[in-house]
């Protein structure tokens, strides 16, 4: 009889630079805790990109096939994925392939001390609902952990990576990469790790608005964020996008200017400490989740506000 599965696997993704992605490594402390309660081990799995034709594309099925083949010989109890874009594509396919119970959008994963059963805390409706659940059968479990729920730093201790080769699938063969353009790293402060974020949206109207937003962020020692509209219009790069398809931020202070507050945007900032919203529209949805609201024009309010803050700092 197969031994009752109790190991916890952590999928470690390889970044474009060839190194393990840090966000994935940050799942390891949680994985260790769960594994201890299950009397199992933690294994870090990485998939090598070894197929010439698909190099760089990462056809998710090819990665998922490699992972699920590994489960045939050593079935884990839990496979954890970090909520990166790439991992989010692979996890569902792995779950389908190995007939696992799937837990997406997890903000917390731990296990009962007595039974070793894993408990998943998932959010939905943009954070309005939290569900705590467990898997009731002996099925393997696949979970995706949201980036903001991970430890702040990857563990310092060395990690042993179990390498498996990417598995060529018929589907993967039919996709070809034509070209790729890396998104350039900037020296600017990243909103996801900043203590203060000042963000702009449609109401920033363009680069002039973002110049003011940058000035305010600079004065507060913070980073610049943006809504989808501002990114789509090309006023600021995608690195600054806050929301469901961008970064999730939890700064101590979040100031937003001219952002109406779609559900997607609110998902990305609802865990922020104090929220200050400046918007001309008195019915802006973002006001629902704001501590301080200024109904007015950001172009008129930001210059004196920057002056006042300068004064206060002296």
């Amino acid at each position: 009889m197969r031994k009752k599965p109790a190991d916890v696997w952590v999928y470690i993704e390889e970044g474009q630079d060839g190194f393990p992605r840090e966000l994935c490594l940050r799942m390891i402390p949680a994985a260790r805790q769960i594994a201890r309660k299950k009397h199992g081990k933690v294994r870090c799995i990485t998939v090598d990109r070894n197929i010439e034709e698909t190099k760089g594309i990462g056809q998710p099925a090819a990665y998922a096939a490699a992972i699920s083949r590994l489960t045939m010989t050593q079935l884990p109890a839990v496979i954890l994925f970090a909520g990166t874009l790439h991992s989010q594509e692979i996890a569902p396919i792995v779950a389908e392939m190995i007939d696992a119970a799937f837990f997406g959008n997890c903000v917390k994963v731990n296990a009962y001390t007595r039974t070793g059963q894993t408990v998943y805390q998932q959010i939905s409706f943009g954070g309005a609902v939290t569900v705590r659940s467990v898997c009731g059968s002996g099925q393997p479990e696949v979970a995706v952990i949201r980036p903001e729920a991970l430890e702040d730093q990857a563990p310092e201790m060395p990690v042993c990576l179990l390498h498996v080769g990417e598995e060529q699938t018929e589907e993967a063969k039919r996709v070809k990469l034509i070209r790729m353009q890396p998104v350039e790293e900037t020296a600017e402060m990243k909103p996801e790790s900043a203590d203060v974020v000042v963000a702009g949206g449609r109401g920033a109207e363009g680069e002039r608005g973002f110049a003011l937003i940058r000035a305010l962020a600079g004065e507060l020692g913070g980073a610049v964020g943006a809504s989808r509209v501002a990114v789509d219009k090309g006023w600021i790069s995608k690195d600054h996008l806050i929301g469901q398809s961008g970064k999730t931020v939890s700064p101590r202070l979040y100031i937003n200017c001219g952002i109406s507050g779609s559900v997607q945007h609110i998902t990305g900032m609802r865990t922020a400490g104090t929220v200050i919203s400046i918007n001309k529209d008195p019915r802006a949805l973002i006001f629902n989740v704001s501590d301080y609201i200024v109904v007015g024009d950001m172009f008129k309010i930001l210059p004196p506000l920057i002056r006042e803050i300068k004064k206060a700092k002296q």
Partner: protein
Amino acid sequence: MRILVCVKQVPDTLDAVFDEERGRLKRTCMPKTMNPYDRCALDAALEIKDKNENVKITVLSMGPKDADTVLKDALALGTDEAFLISDPQLEGSDVHGTVMTLTGAVRKLEDIQHDPFDLICCGERSVDGGTAYVAPALAYRLGRPFAARVMSCDPTDQGRLELVREDEDCVQWLETAFPCVVSFTKSDQPVRYPSVSGIIKAEMARIPRLNADDIYGTMPKREAASVIIRSISYHRLKKKSRIIREKDPEKAAFMLADLMRRGHLI
């Protein structure tokens, strides 16, 4: 060229999500709309139809009976036909169940028309559940190539599809063979509005319904994963806020700076 667009009906706003007295979601009285990411998928399909001849767009949704409103919206925008999968037996499907039902429905529609869909367009994720499960899993179940988070796509003269997609730290240009499944994250296209004739056509349309028997026939339905919910909690997202309504921007800025100072935010 035949395109299938999968759309989901979702609650419209953060408002009214929460029933304070009974401590649960007020799903029935929440305004509903088409999932915005699915709308991007739909816009991309309509864009292909605008630029190419002989494109037929089918729209598919799964949900309660009133989910036909999102299909009517899609018809009003210029799609050709719509189907709704609706059956009390399928209520409360988990993500696996939804994928199996959609896979079955796609096969069924392809059987009826003796022709596979060249392209299946989905939204990257829904704004309610938001797990981004369905599109990649559907591609896997159908055994078709998949590209996630596509921003724009264009059929080439060589009968392939050229795609631009975003990844964690790069933008990629890909080419894929048909048939394939693509999930969309946004479109650069301006928002489309339905024409008057489109609205009339959609109003008149009777949307055919597929039930569990149509899709699964005698095949056993896949069992849902046995997930046991231990607790559900609802958070009021709404905060008690201080509003500054001062008309004079100088004074408003001063008041805000003062509040920030007192809150030790400066």
